[in-house]
């Protein structure tokens, strides 16, 4: 299926209804959103399976084998099981905040994926400052987790909420500094232009320090080990998810993988040349790179030890921040001046 086919699917509904102008645009957006949502669901599912299988291989286990070929249906079975469980809201919880924030986070992350382009012609929103919009919304997520943690009324979730804010303070500034360097190098914050600026060289080659910092900060952003202090399953039981019962926990799992998808997409778009690549169509390249980045994130998860929250703050301010500044200066001196 080529990009042209995809585009014709998007405009199919509005064309067949004979719509035009603003109304057609709205219908097209909705159709696009549904398509992307399906893509996210498929990818989240595949990430979940990849994670289980990869970690199992690293740990000298088999992983799921029983449900479906190579255990491909295991996550579906788990999903159904979780949905069938009882839904409990703790007495101490602020019900609306507690239950409202998880769907909210999920919709933020899906919305962010919606803002990202998947192919040169498959761009929903071509905003001039698209990348800034993405990062502003992204830094909103830890605050929502903070609200959720305190709303649940559980002490472990409360500690997790505090950690969430500390984490935000430790990696957000280096992240934005690297983003500034990317913007300066591409000459634009438009996502499509950032990708097309990497036609010759990937930004990961042009500023390796920035890439490493961004990768580390992204691990923290999507709450992956070694920076999963918020969830810290053997300290805080499940962190801010401790009191979240089954149906909402399903959403939380979904959120987890959506954020991983988002994180790897951002890494690919900003540093690994986005959809640039020979032979294969752009969207395939983009998703393939995504899978490779996700694989590395999973391998890191399986092999490392969790960092301590105060050490992360120290690491962020003593190493990441000066290095991010250095990266910005070097980028300016070599490529821009």
């Amino acid at each position, binding site marked *: 299926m080529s990009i042209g086919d995809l585009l014709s699917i998007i405009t199919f509904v509005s064309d067949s209804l004979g719509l035009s102008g603003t109304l057609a645009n709205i219908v097209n957006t909705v159709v696009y959103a549904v398509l992307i949502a399906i893509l996210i669901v498929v990818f989240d599912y595949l990430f979940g399976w990849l994670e289980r299988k990869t*970690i199992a291989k*690293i*740990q*000298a*286990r088999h992983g799921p084998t029983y449900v479906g070929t190579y255990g491909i249906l295991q996550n579906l079975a788990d999903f159904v099981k979780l949905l069938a469980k009882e839904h409990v809201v703790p007495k101490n919880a602020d019900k609306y905040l507690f239950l409202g924030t998880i769907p909210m986070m999920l919709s933020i992350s899906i919305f962010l994926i919606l803002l990202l382009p998947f192919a040169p012609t498959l761009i929903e929103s071509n905003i001039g400052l698209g990348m800034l919009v993405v990062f502003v919304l992204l830094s909103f997520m830890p605050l929502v987790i903070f609200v959720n943690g305190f709303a649940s009324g559980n*002490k*472990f979730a*409360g*500690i997790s909420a*505090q950690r969430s804010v500390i984490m935000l303070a430790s990696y957000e500034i280096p992240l934005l500094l690297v983003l500034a360097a990317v913007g300066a190098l591409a000459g634009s914050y438009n996502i499509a232009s950032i990708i097309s600026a990497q036609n010759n060289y990937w930004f990961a080659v042009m500023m390796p320090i920035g890439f490493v910092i961004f990768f580390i900060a992204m691990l923290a952003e999507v709450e992956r*080990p*070694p920076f*999963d*202090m918020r969830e*810290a*399953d*053997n*300290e805080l*039981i499940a962190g801010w998810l401790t009191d979240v019962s089954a149906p909402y926990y399903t959403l939380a799992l979904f959120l987890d993988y959506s954020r991983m998808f988002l994180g790897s997409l951002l890494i690919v778009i900003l540093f690994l040349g986005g959809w640039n690549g020979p032979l294969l169509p752009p969207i395939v390249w983009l998703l393939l790179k995504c899978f490779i980045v996700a694989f590395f994130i999973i391998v890191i*998860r*399986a*092999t*490392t*030890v*969790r*960092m*301590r*929250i*105060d*050490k992360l703050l120290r690491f962020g301010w003593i190493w990441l921040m000066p290095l991010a500044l250095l990266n910005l200066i070097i980028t300016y001196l070599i490529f821009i001046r």
Partner: protein
Amino acid sequence: MTTINIGPIHPSTHGVLRLVAEIDGDTVVRVEPHIGFLHRGVEKLVETRMYMQSPPYMEKLDYVAPMAYDEVYVAAVEKALGVDVKERAMYVRVVLLELQRIASHLLWLGTMANDLGQLFTVFMWAFRDRDMVLRLLEEAAGARMFYVNMRLGGLIRDLPEGFQEKADEVLDYLDKRVKEYEDYLEKNPIFMQRMRGVGILSREDALNLGVTGPVLRGSGVKYDVRKNSPYYVYDKLYFEPQVRNEGDCFARYKVRMLELRSSIRLARMAMEKMPAGDAVGMQIRLILPEAKNRIVTVNRELPRGECFMYLVADPQKPYRLSIRDPSFINLAAFGELAKGARTADLFAILGSLDMVMGGVDR
């Protein structure tokens, strides 16, 4: 200041330990272990049984290294009854006990890494390696977990044919694996950050709190029952107690890693020097030779520290048995160690103490 309740059902309390921690921000002000969820009254139970009916109860005290506990009790009974252990049986016991120590330390290694937030990777690897040792023990004793293979004066049976070759193979493999674990963990800067300088137990505190085993040796005290009051053939085998001076979690980790190596060497050495002969002990009978000594004490180096058994003997059954369990005493040091630590380090320290709740609650 928040008071949080950790356990008895919590992912990292290693069984049914309940901790009540007062936390100021991220710093632990005070932590109080609440124990007794696994109390079965074993010491009293033993009084109502004949001598050789009790080893199965003893094994459940430390379900990670059951054979070691079994051996302490049987040694106490042997001392009370005045039964001599056969020459070959001594060597066989040393081999099995060292293998048991290796199995126990491997389990500790896995759970320790798990407490630091490792996603079960080292845990799985360590369990796989532990299983090879368990298979050896199964061959020698006939069971995988609770062996009950100690008999008065010897064992239930001699080592099976070809045991030495198999054991040598496993020990060679483990030697390599221990190096791999060390490389894997110690070259990880985050691991070192989490272990170094965390939960420091000074030499004085260690002596005053009465901790034993790797916890004591991690604080720079060269005390090992196998060396200081040798039993069986430990005085004929060459080994040195492993000591580190830092007293932090890393020192305790390192001591256990070094002990894994020294246990591998000891098991090899004991197998080489093992004389031919008979290692089978007395059959289990309700009526045994009458006890000659009224009060006996036995101390042994278990994987977790020094176990001390005090037995007042009636002719055919114990009148009173009192056990000094190493995990229980080591856990008492936890409150001291955790003071001023970070919340996340609470579990690193708990993991480095390596206690088994079966022994703590008795």
